[in-house]
């Protein structure tokens, strides 16, 4: 039987040393490297001791998915293949996870939507699969451009949902993500989201851990449900039998099962706070004006704050790193001094602002916007303009030049 701890210090077939993850992420030397987001995904996977990766082409994740294929060819991944559709791929991922493998996949936009039936199945079956979501538009007419609407659909699947701002987040969180989602009291799938193109296709300096260190392997026998490999009891075991005979107690079983999934989401809090150093990050939360955002909108917010400073307007920032579990307590605390809470988003519905409104007292303080979608960029100037308008200050129209 695999014992995660006993392998630490030993080498895998590629000569990498299985390393205590905390030491690898926090103490090992880092090498600055200039990479695209897709290349960073590959580099993280090189160090992830991943058993099975299943790929399917859809922009903007195709490059990352193909690069991981190269890793497979080099011998870093146990198995790798291209599935026939995202629905099938997510089921193939489930099959591999049922069989006790550490599993990785990537998807985007319409792919996420096509695969959607799988996600509550994953969490109900307690499968700690990691899925990268490089967000893009989902509605007709087709768009391959960045748009975060699909995250709204993932929020109620019972998956852990994290939203990376930068390629550095991506690198660290892919590796740390397995540590959180594979905890026996959590053991849930993780949707690690980023804004497509903005993160995947731009180059950035990322500090990488040594390439000769890798995560300890996944131990499926610590799972909260039996691994389906005929190596553990009970042998009379179905994952997962129907509990829907028409009587109260069957319904209560299903209800308890659902509650247990969400209890596991809650339990991930403790581990996530440890690994990510909190579910949110804050700057200057004593300011009257506060930008609260996730993903790339955080970067745009930072730039807006710099521009506002030049004009003598002080503005704080809350970066939401983790959307599930929802950092309600942290957001209440961080926003308690704010008179105006600005929530810039890359989607048409403003789902993040809605979540924040439902969380804090005096929710009229939440200003949902500015919002862009369909691939539009969000110039920091429009955040500045929105804030100045809120403060009753004159601001130039940024829409165009007039007639």
């Amino acid at each position, binding site marked *: 039987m695999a014992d995660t701890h006993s392998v630490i210090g030993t080498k895998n077939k590629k000569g990498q040393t299985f390393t205590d993850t905390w030491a690898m992420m926090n103490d090992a030397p880092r090498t600055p490297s200039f990479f695209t987001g897709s290349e960073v995904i590959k580099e993280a996977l090189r160090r992830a001791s991943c*058993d*099975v990766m*299943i790929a399917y082409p859809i922009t903007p994740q195709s490059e990352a998915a193909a690069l991981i294929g190269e890793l497979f060819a080099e011998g870093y991944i*146990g*198995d790798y*293949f291209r*599935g*026939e*559709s995202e*629905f*099938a*791929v997510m*089921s*193939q*991922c*489930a*099959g*591999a*996870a*049922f*069989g*006790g*493998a550490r*599993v990785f996949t990537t998807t985007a936009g319409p792919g996420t939507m096509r695969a959607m*039936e*799988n996600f509550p*199945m994953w969490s109900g*079956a307690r499968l700690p699969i990691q899925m990268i979501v490089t967000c893009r538009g989902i509605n007709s007419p087709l768009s391959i451009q960045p748009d975060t609407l699909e995250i709204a659909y993932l929020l109620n699947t019972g998956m852990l949902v994290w939203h990376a701002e930068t390629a550095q987040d991506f690198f660290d969180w892919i590796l740390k993500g397995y540590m959180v989602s594979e905890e026996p009291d959590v053991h849930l799938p993780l949707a690690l989201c980023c804004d497509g193109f903005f993160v995947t296709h731009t180059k950035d300096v990322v500090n990488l851990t040594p390439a000769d260190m890798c995560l300890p392997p996944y131990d499926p026998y610590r799972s909260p449900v*039996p691994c*389906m*490999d*005929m*190596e*553990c009891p009970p*042998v*009379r*075991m*179905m*994952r*997962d*039998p*129907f509990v829907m005979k028409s009587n109260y107690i069957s319904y209560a079983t299903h209800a308890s099962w659902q509650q247990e999934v969400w209890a596991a989401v809650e339990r991930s809090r403790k581990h996530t706070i440890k690994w990510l150093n909190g579910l949110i990050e804050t700057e200057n939360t004593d300011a009257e004006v506060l930008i609260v955002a996730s993903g790339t909108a955080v970067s745009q917010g930072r730039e807006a704050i710099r521009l506002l400073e030049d004009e003598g307007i002080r503005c704080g920032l809350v970066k939401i790193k983790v959307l599930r579990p929802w950092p309600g307590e942290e957001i209440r605390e961080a926003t308690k001094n704010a008179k105006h809470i600005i929530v810039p988003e890359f989607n048409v519905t403003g789902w993040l602002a809605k979540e924040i409104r439902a969380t804090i007292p005096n929710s009229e303080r939440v200003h949902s916007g500015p919002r862009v979608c369909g691939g539009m960029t969000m110039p920091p100037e429009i955040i500045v303009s929105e804030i100045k308008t809120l403060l009753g200050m004159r601001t130039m129209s940024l829409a165009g030049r007039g007639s």
Partner: protein
Amino acid sequence: MSKERIKISEDLYDIMPSDYQDLVKSATYGKEDRGWKDIGNSKELIEQHSLCAGCPESMAFRYILASLPNPEDTVMVGSTGCTSLVFPMVAVHNIHSLFGNQNAIASGLKRALSVRFPGRTKDVVVLAGDGATVDIGLDMTLQAWFRQEKFTTICFDNELYANTGGQESGLMQKGFVAKMAPVGKLFDKVRLPEIARESGCHYVVQCTVSKPSLVEKVVRNAVMIAREIGPTYLQLYTPCILEIGKNSMEGLQEMRDSEKPTERFAYKEYVSEPAKQLLAEIAAKDKEKKAAAKQLASQGA
């Protein structure tokens, strides 16, 4: 898992309900020549099920579970439908996840087991109804075959959606009047056995489950070929007596009537060249073993 590991902790043996004690004492895990003849003299790998009285599916389940060559290292994958009401009672690890994704689950599972247990036999067997195999899951059924995934697909063909109450399915006969086919089904029964052959299956059989010895033979062949060569497919007629208006005791006759040479479930078989070779090798080895045993017996006597 080796047969030796399927055992009850000694200090808690006495409190285990008897069906679990029987499972350890007299089930046929690890028995090399296990087969349908063990039914009645050994503990079956299936407990009481909740299918309708007389359902041929229950016969099929019993024959298949008695015939798997390596149940202690087999994982089964099911799909939504009547079969999924039986699977909780089956004493090999089995998976239900969604309706129609069984061959995708099995693809991932088989690959994970190959990565985790290199050099060891781990058989994967899919068992699903015709709606799951041919309609909602057809894409994943075929793609697994195209990719030459090394597992067996068994389809329980009852020619309709039974668990949801008798709706038209792709494997239903043309002209049959059913729910969602109010004027009779307008197109032919999908010819999945032929499609399976063209899609790369190395062993394809269509038959009924009227003869346990036949079921044993085709299940063993299908699993052995899938283990060594590539995908295999069995399409077994398990009529839904309820939906075709038969009584509990009429299932067997319905199958016998339908397997006549001119009928739609006449025995049909396809074996690829590499599979033929493998079957010949297995037969030769069996013959050798039997001869050796015979010699040993005569020496002893």
